[in-house]
């Protein structure tokens, strides 16, 4: 529907109603991250007070346990509300109740826009980038602590209680981060550019998703002062119901992050479906956009289950319902089912964007079209669809529906078929190519190498008899680190190195980039490959004690993990030096890409495209000298020019 460029039947008539002019606020009334912090703290305090007022009198809530979960949940919830209020995410929703139009914030070219509620998808993308990196490095530091504790089999450097808390915190933060790692920064920034749109469909929802993401980060951090949570990232009940205050941070944090995930997916789906430029038919949509569409569908549809399951958990802990407590008519299986019904699509939320980036980058560095484009998209949607039907493979030994195990073994193994499509596509693209080993290409190839190991070991896990040995062991741990860290994070870094010239107009030092890649690649494998062996040798996940004969492998892994951590410092140094302190200007299109996003000026103007481009070809025609250009973006100036009315035309539901 979006390729029709004719004018609507009726004349446009009067201009849409003018919106209220942007109010000129004094500096101290402007909303930014500082007001957000202030209101978040105020909301936290208010919630704490209210929780104690409301529930403090019930001995079952705050009596002998000495801990008022109602107060903790309320303070976290109101804290998040204050955060959103302070940043200005709720201005429009509140104004809407009085029939007001959205206020168009004045265009702000200064750096302060990154600390404000911005409806520019490019600003949101950059904000997400720093959010994701902060999240990633925080959780990465916790990983270093985990590996430190595992240096000795029975001596404890950190202590068992703290260790369990750190394990849970690391896992949860990484999962929260990884589900937005690509969709957030690269998806929001690039999708409109790639499809030739001037904006996303629901820019305020997009911005709100980012500020919920940051709120989720703060909420999950509060788990540590509240005493952590002992359940790991899976939060199994009834241990969840038994745990102390940090568990509330986990549940509220996941709910907040989950809402952000839903909103981010929601906006991107509508954008990709409706804001494609004229001529951007489905067959011309870049593979990366396809992957983001598949991911967004999973984000929007799988995450509500997590939020609902979290709500039940919060009710169990505050209102003392018994969803997950068997002795009171609940079921511990209920959480396992609901959680994994979200949890397995979540795994592909983290894998698909990685496929997209790699398939998008390979043609540029092989100077070839992407091989079997339709197979690639079919593969992504096949994975997305199948991912809803495999969740019980996490529960093969649980005693839940044991007779259904062959079915889930089948669906799980079937997923390797569409995943195999991706390999067909990427390997086919390499065939007789002209491969340039630039930094993004190295990361993309590294992803292919790592994900292969992660994927193949996944088949081992799907096989029920073998799963009896490897389930819940370090083998699983190594498997999903190979797919997420080795897959998604490598792809993310490929994307970062690839698109930074577009986003910043500056270029990384390529030699340092290559050093970063090789350190990360080698030490990643040294860290996680031994974990496969440890798992096969009988080391369960999340333990602080292990057999003495496993110490060498553990120590090898730990030392490699430190070096892996250090390799990120190379990236940070590279970033600080060549992007911030001594900027190196990048050529307009350093990799010679045909992608539409590279046809825009750098830095990308506020409305992305001077004229909405007319797309004429898919961006993979590297081999053809006489191929049509991807898009015509140099149309003559309009016959009837008019100033765009400042009011946003879309009405958001």
């Amino acid at each position, binding site marked *: 529907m979006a390729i029709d460029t004719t004018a609507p039947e009726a004349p446009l008539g009067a201009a849409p109603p003018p919106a209220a002019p942007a109010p000129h606020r004094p500096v101290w009334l402007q909303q930014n991250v500082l007001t957000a912090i202030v209101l978040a703290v105020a909301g936290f305090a208010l919630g704490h007070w209210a929780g104690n007022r409301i529930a403090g009198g019930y001995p079952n809530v705050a009596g002998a346990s000495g801990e008022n979960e109602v107060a903790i949940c309320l303070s976290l919830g109101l804290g998040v509300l204050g955060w959103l209020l302070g940043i200005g995410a709720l201005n429009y929703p509140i104004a809407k109740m009085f029939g007001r139009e959205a206020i168009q914030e004045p265009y702000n070219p200064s750096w302060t826009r990154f600390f404000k509620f911005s409806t520019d998808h490019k600003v949101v993308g950059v904000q997400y980038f720093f959010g994701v990196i902060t999240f990633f490095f925080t959780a990465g530091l916790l990983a270093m602590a985990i590996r430190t504790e595992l240096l000795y089999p029975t001596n404890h450097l950190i202590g068992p*209680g703290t260790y369990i808390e750190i394990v849970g915190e690391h896992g949860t933060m990484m999962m929260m981060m990884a589900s937005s790692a690509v969709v957030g920064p690269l998806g929001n920034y690039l999708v409109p550019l790639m499809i030739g749109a001037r904006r996303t469909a629901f820019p305020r929802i997009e911005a709100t998703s980012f500020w919920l993401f940051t709120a989720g980060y703060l909420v999950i951090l509060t788990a540590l002062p509240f005493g952590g949570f002992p359940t790991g990232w899976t939060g199994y009940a*009834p241990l969840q119901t*038994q745990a102390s205050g940090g568990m509330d941070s986990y549940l509220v944090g996941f709910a907040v992050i989950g809402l952000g995930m839903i909103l981010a997916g929601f906006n991107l789906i509508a954008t990709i479906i409706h804001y494609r430029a004229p001529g951007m038919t489905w067959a011309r949509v870049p593979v990366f956009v396809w992957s983001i569409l598949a991911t967004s569908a999973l984000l929007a549809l799988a995450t509500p289950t997590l939020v609902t399951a979290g709500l039940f958990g919060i009710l169990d802990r505050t209102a003392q319902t018994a969803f997950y407590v068997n002795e009171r008519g609940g079921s511990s299986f209920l959480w396992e089912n609901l959680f994994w019904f979200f949890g397995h699509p979540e795994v592909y939320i983290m894998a698909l964007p990685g496929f997209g980036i790699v398939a998008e980058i390979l043609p540029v560095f092989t100077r070839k079209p992407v091989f079997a484009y339709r197979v690639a998209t079919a593969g992504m949607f096949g994975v997305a669809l199948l991912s809803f039907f495999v969740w019980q493979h996490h529960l093969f030994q649980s005693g839940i529906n044991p007779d259904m195990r062959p079915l889930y073994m089948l669906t799980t193994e079937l997923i390797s078929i569409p995943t195999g499509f991706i390999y067909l596509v990427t390997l086919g693209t390499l065939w007789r190519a002209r491969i340039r080993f630039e930094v993004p290409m190295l990361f993309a190839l590294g992803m292919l190498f790592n994900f292969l190991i992660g994927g193949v070991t996944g088949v081992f896990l799907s096989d029920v008899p073998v799963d009896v040995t490897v389930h819940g062991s370090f083998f699983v741990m190594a498997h999903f680190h190979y797919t997420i860290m080795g897959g998604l994070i490598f792809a993310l870094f490929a994307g970062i190195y690839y698109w930074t010239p577009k986003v910043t107009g500056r270029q990384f030092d390529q030699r340092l980039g290559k050093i970063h890649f090789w350190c990360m690649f080698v030490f990643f494998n040294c860290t996680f490959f031994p974990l496969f062996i440890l798992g096969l040798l009988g080391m369960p996940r999340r333990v602080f004690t292990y057999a003495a004969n496993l110490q060498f492998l553990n120590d090898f892994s730990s030392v490699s993990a430190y070096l892996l951590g250090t390799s990120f410092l190379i990236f940070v140094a590279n970033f600080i030096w060549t992007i911030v302190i001594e900027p190196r200007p990048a050529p307009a299109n350093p990799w010679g890409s045909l992608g539409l996003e590279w046809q825009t000026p750098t830095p990308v103007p506020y409305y992305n495209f001077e004229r909405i481009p007319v797309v004429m070809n898919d961006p993979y025609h590297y081999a053809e000298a006489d191929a049509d250009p991807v898009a015509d973006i140099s149309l003559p100036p309009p016959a009837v020019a008019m100033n765009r009315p400042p009011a946003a035309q879309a009405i958001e539901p």
Partner: protein
Amino acid sequence: MRMARSTRIALVAVVLGIATGLIVFVGMAYVRTSPPTVDFATGHRAGQAVNVHMQTVGTYGKGTHPTWVSYLIQDPKTGRWVHTTLLDVPADTRVNFTIYQFDSGSPLRNQQVGLVQGTIGGKMSVNGKSLRLLNSYSNAGVAHTFSIPTLGVNVPLLGVSSPNLCGVAPCSTARWPHNVVRFSFVTPKAVGQYAWQCFVPCGAGWLYGNGGPMQTIGYMDGLLKVVQA
């Protein structure tokens, strides 16, 4: 965005400095939450038995969790009661435990832990009386257990039947009703840290009575750190 180079360097330095500071601060604050370790190993002579005195209280009575049940250990050098559950003991040594039990009892979640196991002679002495088994459904029930599952040590501690219970630690044996439980075992030859805990679901207000203090080191869980003397 146009800033002088020196401004940018300064800005980056400040951000990095704040980040490093935060990491160090949070890390140190977090590590610091570990309770102290009472040392029974230093100065220990081979062949000599070690005497450990502990007490259990129904409510610790102060600090961040005044309602929580807790163990305390007496420092052998100063004689002061320390609010901790970590103790260093020498390897391959007989340790004589004396536990002053100030809490009320209840039936056990699993009567299996009513059995005395892993001590020398497979018995304990309760107020001077030698016992191998506590029936938690009769008498005053069992208040707590001192159990090291990986070493096979398990000692149930008889509950106090008096309604007049000590509520603020440390409790004075002269003032409050209590039971004195004595037992001994020989520490393993292998150095390492052995988890010990209580198996009575005495974490009031928590699901299964096993949250809060029951899952916090320094209250009802601890480490027996076996070290080379």
